[in-house]
């Protein structure tokens, strides 16, 4: 009985410590303001760049410049929300030969570690897209603002490594393998109730 009470007390303390530990962590937890943030991709079609954007995504950003070890990004992208300003192209990209959103409706990016670079920061992380998970590093700058922070950065990936492009689209003649990603996130602190 007594042991049980001690165990319970220890468990409570441990969980309290965990809670405190999280709250006391020097990182700030943010979410991206959906209306002010952008997540764009830039492909090269027939020799010319074209830009598309994902209208729906969520970004949970835990970051502090002096606490890179405990910083963490988690980004969920609704692939159905892609918009390249051309309905034909959007429909084709949602279809089975490109994103195949019937089977892979979302893409997920999570970071593993961060390093300081001369111009900002670099994150190592994995991107899950089209049923494939691969390392994709991102480079970004982080600027604190009165209401939160601004996170701007880029990444580069090879679409064919993720199987994005089947059939004719496997060819890199008309659409190049490399795709650039550019993001500009307006971050607001996550409220404690979340």
């Amino acid at each position, binding site marked *: 009985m007594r042991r049980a009470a001690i165990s319970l007390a220890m468990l409570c303390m441990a969980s309290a410590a965990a809670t405190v530990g999280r709250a006391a962590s020097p990182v700030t937890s943010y979410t991206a303001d959906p209306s002010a943030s952008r997540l764009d991709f830039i492909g090269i079609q*027939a*020799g*010319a760049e*074209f830009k598309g954007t994902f209208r729906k995504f969520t970004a949970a950003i835990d970051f502090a410049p002096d606490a890179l070890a405990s910083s963490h990004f988690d980004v969920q992208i609704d692939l159905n929300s892609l918009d390249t300003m051309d309905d034909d*192209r959007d429909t*084709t990209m949602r279809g089975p030969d490109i994103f195949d959103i019937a089977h892979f409706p979302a893409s997920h990016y999570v970071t593993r570690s961060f390093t300081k670079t001369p111009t900002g920061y670099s994150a190592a992380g994995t991107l899950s897209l089209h049923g494939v998970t691969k390392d994709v590093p991102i480079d970004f700058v982080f600027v604190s603002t009165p209401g939160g922070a601004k996170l701007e950065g880029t990444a580069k990936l090879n679409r064919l490594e993720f199987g994005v492009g089947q059939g*004719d689209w496997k060819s890199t003649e008309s*659409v190049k393998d490399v795709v650039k990603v550019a993001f500009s996130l307006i971050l607001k602190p996550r409220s404690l109730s979340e």
Partner: protein
Amino acid sequence: MPTQEPRTRFTAVAQLLHWIIAALIVTQFALAWTGRDLPLGTHKLALLAWHKSFGMTVLMLAIIRAVWRWANPPPELPAGMTPLERTLARATHVAFYALLFVMPITGWLMSSAKNYSVSWFGLFTWPDLIAQNKTAFEALKTTHDYLSGVLLGIAVLHILAALKHHFWNKDDVLLRMLPFTKSKRGL
């Protein structure tokens, strides 16, 4: 510039520009008609990429050609032509020159409006002229299509007129634009 004896033939440069542009326009119609009804896919994109590269080539050549024509006026029309024929010939040529600019520029605008920027044979990308806009794209596409019909019409008229001059009037109007020939026939 010193006045020279009036020219009886087009200059070699004018002939070269005329025939290169003519060949490009024939190619443009072939590419447009082949690509038009294809579903969006790599084949269509490839055909359209050629169409845009050739179209921008026409635009650049048209600029050179207009400057060359200004600096090197073409030979006079044959003396025997009626005022109506002269007016018709002039109107056709003015329309041709206008279309050499308007067709590529409306095409370029279409590409900009639809967010398919124009590359020149993959070597460089032309800047977008306008922001993406679906309504503008539809209006430009209609214009581009309609003017292609006008271009086809005046091209047929132009060819028929050249043949009429050659075989009916038996003057040198056709020969003076043909390389490797001599314009022996009188005016």
